[in-house]
């Protein structure tokens, strides 16, 4: 189920499951997963192409005409049917840290009601891991992802209303052992999203209800409230 009335610029994919809040870990990971998938569309002429189905094609030749399918998934994906698939790109998010930009994060206050608005920034590290059977391939694909992020970060920042998108860092390509030796390269960067929230004290609200009740002259509080809040 999609959220109704989503704003146009929002750190969340349109139509994502309703429990996923904007700028939440799942929203951020989904966002960057889709962004990376976009780079590996078949029409882009790369030697690797993303597809919903990971079953290799008979015609795959790992070149621009018959690209090899690449798996692009969020990290720790428990429902993916493809196992040990390479080449693959995994998107993950690190620990979110809040950064204050105002004293006590306060953005403003309405004296009459006590409604107080707050604002802060959330810094979220993003990690994109590129895994391949070959060191050269892992490094080449990582370079593609790295430069894509580097060149597109302004557009991504605007599209998803991010406060900051730091220049991405391309890591070393290192080996690992699984069913056989695989190579992985990390592309990492930080993003900053806007955090907004408000608090409203309950006492002034209750006081307002009491005053309205006394002013109404109704002898029974129950009937008064029923009249007020039931159609």
């Amino acid at each position, binding site marked *: 189920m999609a959220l109704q009335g989503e704003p146009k610029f929002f750190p969340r994919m349109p139509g994502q499951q309703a429990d996923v809040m904007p700028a939440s870990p799942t929203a951020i990971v989904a966002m960057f997963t889709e962004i990376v998938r976009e780079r590996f569309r078949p029409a882009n002429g790369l030697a690797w192409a993303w597809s919903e189905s990971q079953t*290799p094609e008979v015609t795959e030749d790992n070149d621009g005409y018959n690209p090899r399918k690449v798996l692009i998934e969020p*990290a*720790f994906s*428990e429902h993916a049917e493809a*196992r040990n698939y390479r080449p693959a790109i995994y998107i993950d998010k690190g620990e979110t840290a809040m950064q204050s930009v105002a004293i006590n994060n306060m953005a403003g206050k309405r004296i009459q009601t006590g409604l107080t608005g707050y604002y802060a920034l959330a810094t979220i590290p993003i990690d994109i891991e590129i895994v391949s059977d070959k*060191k050269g*391939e892992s490094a*080449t694909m990582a370079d593609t992802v790295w430069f894509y992020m580097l060149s597109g970060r302004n557009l991504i920042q605007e599209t998803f209303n991010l406060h900051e998108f730091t220049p991405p860092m391309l890591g070393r390509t290192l080996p690992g052992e699984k*069913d056989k030796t695989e190579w992985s390269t990390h592309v990492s960067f930080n993003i900053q999203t806007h955090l907004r929230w408000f608090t409203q004290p309950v006492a002034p609200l209750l006081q307002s209800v009491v005053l309205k009740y006394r002013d109404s002259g109704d002898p029974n509080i129950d009937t008064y409230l029923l009249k007020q809040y039931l159609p």
Partner: protein
Amino acid sequence: MALTVTITRTTPLYPNGAFVQWDLSGAVDEGTYFFSLFRSGSSNGPWDEIMPATASAYSFMDRFPTPSVVGYQDPTQLSLARGFYYKVVCVPPAGFASQVDAVMEVEPTLEGKQRLIKRKILRDESLMLQRLNGVPVAVLKRRHWGTRCPKCFDKYTKESMRSNCTNCWGTTFVGGYFDPVMTFAKRGVTPNQVGMTAQGKAEIATTNVTMLDVPGLQDDDILVFLRDNKRFIVKRVLPTELQTVTVHQRLEVSELPRSDIIYRVQVDPFRTPRLF
């Protein structure tokens, strides 16, 4: 007595080459006998000619490296695990129709009783594998020298840029593997260990395989079990030796993921038709 050529000695001369010596028996025709020597990384070839047909030659010093050409990686003996095979072809005076050949790995030979003991062990093992607990397997020996792949190999960094290249099957050498060697092997059960990693659910299925001494296997060689078409990569080789001569091999192997390019290498078109 039929004409027979036998390789009597293959001595490695690390790191520069090997000495190969052979003998001829049953030579009854009068005239000149020509010998050619070939080298390969597998007992089934394909073979590179290193000594063209030479009259009455009974030994050869194979020196590495051979004169190099651009884009060609010469064979070397710089790895502890690399094995070489030599094939001697003898053409008698009667002509090519009567030629005989012999193949041998670079390995010491056993003498007298030890030779017979090895033969007995191999016979028993072979019978056990063929009649009792073995299954047919195709061995794909990985190429470690030859023409580098023009499609995926970068000559400066010496790295492959495409792991699923169908020109070299990810080995960086054109052709990828030597010709498949059909033999029998005993495979243990392969428990599938599923673990959660950052890369989703990972499956690792490792097991042990027992097989005869030929072809001698090394890490990264491939075993294709023809009954179930499961393909394994060799991780570790534990040879059983008799006076430093391999009698049989125990291997630690790991099953390859079904998306691996190895499943596209055609081994036996009758048993496993190529679909992917």
